[in-house]
């Protein structure tokens, strides 16, 4: 069996499982954000009710709203907050950060665990060597809350090996954006991905994150990286204990095995209307942008702000661009303040926002008017997701976002390193 099959077998009390089996398994951790917590709470309260089996396992992060912009939204947050307190479920309130980033940083994700999440990008947590899939909203009310269980169809797994080392200016984010288009949106629906190879192994933990993050965009149910020294060091650094290192059995076979070399890859950009549209960024050089943002599921990492600080070290941001900085969690904001880079970026004209999921869906910030464009580290670019359906969202690396903020237009970031 592979890592996912072993975790699902253990969770469902079976000796073994195979792709296609439907199992009901014990859930170790469930993640909800302010939007999904509302839907799940309402369904639970109206149609199910009663006690929550393991309240300590159900983690809520208010990440779309760092401060409610209306009375109606304040009332929703208040109801969610009361629901968490009533049942003793952990809550990370407004200003804590992005759901995935907060859950990881605060030790809720352990190697070998069975994790579920309401957000579609939940498979990102497989970076820790666990199983994590997004569930339908009603699964939380029907089985996760009352029984700490969920149903799963055991997925087939595709092994994706990345070899080589990237050129200067090409970051892990560029590789992940490019790989999404190489594989194709929705191409591997219902299957899981194992990421491996010398390139993946060479990456620091938070760069590996960008690969399991994009799995859902190619349609995958889950993704994982087998735990190694990097994973164990990271887990221990968070103070995690009592976790289990699960790996693929020797001789494990996969539904498919694909391999790419990243050595010749240039910096990339993803252009509207969907995440499968990716090209070398130089093809879009000169496109004006009014907004640039480091934040969301694919950004707001410490390394993103370090890259931005390099670009803006001796250079102010362009007057015609608003440059938003949104830390993925509070720990990151503290580190960037301690290093002095928070002040540097502030002095060069960038604007710090509270730790949150930033302009993701423009719930609390990030709406654009018709004709405006943003370049960001976010993960989605569907028209209408950030204000006007006639505004454009470009997705790129933190380096490219910062370079665009400096130039006032999309540029090849290699000019800035």
């Amino acid at each position: 069996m592979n890592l996912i099959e072993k975790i699902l077998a253990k969770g469902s009390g079976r000796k073994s499982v195979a792709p296609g089996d439907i199992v009901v398994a014990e859930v170790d951790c469930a993640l909800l954000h302010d939007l999904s917590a509302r839907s799940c709470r309402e369904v639970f309260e109206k149609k199910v009710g009663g006690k929550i089996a393991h309240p300590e396992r159900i983690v809520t992060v208010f990440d779309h709203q760092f401060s409610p912009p209306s009375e109606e939204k304040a009332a929703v947050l208040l109801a969610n907050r009361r629901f968490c307190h009533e049942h003793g479920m952990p809550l990370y309130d407004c200003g804590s950060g992005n759901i995935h980033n907060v859950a990881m940083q605060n030790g809720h994700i352990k190697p070998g665990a069975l994790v579920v999440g309401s957000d579609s990008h939940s498979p990102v947590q497989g970076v820790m060597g666990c199983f994590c899939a997004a569930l339908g909203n009603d699964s939380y009310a029907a089985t996760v809350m009352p029984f700490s269980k969920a149903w799963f169809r055991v997925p087939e797994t595709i092994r994706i090996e990345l070899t080589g080392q990237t050129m200067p200016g090409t970051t892990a984010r560029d590789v992940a954006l490019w790989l999404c288009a190489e594989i194709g949106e929705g191409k591997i629906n219902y299957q899981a991905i194992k990421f491996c190879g010398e390139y993946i192994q060479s990456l620091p933990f938070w760069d590996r994150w960008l690969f399991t993050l994009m799995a859902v965009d190619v349609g995958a149910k889950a993704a994982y990286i087998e735990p190694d020294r990097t994973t164990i060091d990271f887990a221990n650094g968070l103070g995690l204990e009592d976790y289990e290192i699960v790996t693929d059995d020797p001789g494990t076979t996969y539904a498919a095995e694909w391999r790419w070399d990243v050595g010749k890859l240039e910096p990339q950009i993803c252009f509207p209307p969907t995440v499968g549209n990716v090209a070398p960024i130089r093809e879009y050089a000169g496109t004006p942008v009014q907004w640039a943002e480091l934040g969301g599921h694919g950004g707001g990492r410490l390394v993103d702000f370090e890259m931005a600080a390099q670009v803006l070290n001796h250079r102010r941001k362009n007057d015609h661009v608003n440059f938003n900085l949104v830390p993925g969690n509070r720990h990151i904001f503290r580190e960037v303040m301690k290093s002095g880079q928070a002040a540097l970026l502030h002095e060069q004209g960038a604007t710090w926002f509270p730790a949150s999921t930033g302009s993701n869906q423009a719930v609390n910030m990030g709406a654009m008017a018709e004709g405006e464009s943003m370049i960001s580290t976010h993960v989605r670019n569907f028209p209408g997701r950030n204000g006007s359906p006639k505004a454009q969202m470009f997705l790129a690396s933190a380096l490219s976002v910062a370079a665009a903020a400096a130039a006032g237009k999309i540029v090849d970031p290699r000019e800035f390193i």
Partner: protein
Amino acid sequence: MTSSTETRAFQTARRGRAWMFGDNVPTDQIVATKVVFSPMEVVLKHVLEELKPEFPANVRPGDLIVAGVHFGQSSGRAIAPKAIQAAGVGCIVAESFARTFLRNCYEIGLPIIECPGASRLARDGDVVSVDLESGTVRNETTGQTLQGNPVDPFLLRMLAAGGIIPLVRRTGSDLGATNT
């Protein structure tokens, strides 16, 4: 067994006018974020309007949605299939579905079926019939028939129960899945 009785009592055939949609339709364009928490009667005035402005006013109970690959991608918001269900759509036929959307549909009791070739099967307004159990999808206007993927018996039982919450009431926490 009770489960097979339930499945037999459940109507696995669906028939209605087709509404055609393309590939990679995101939930953001099924129910936009701006109305995601509005009451259902408000959501229904906007469902799928970004892609077909006439859909909210003209959709009738029993109509079918027929679409391309990766239908329902993006946000896992259950309001997207709930709005389609509330609009009266009897079944969604697509080449493939995004898996959170697929899961949401079965969990709320909205029938869906995967059918390769579906995006070229019909035009808006053609009458399409579907059998969830056998997987056949037929354009009754043109006579063309396709073989879709029969719905898994476990998921058929979930649909027959009316979704995951009523299924749990009948089966308990194991959903009757331990022997499948």
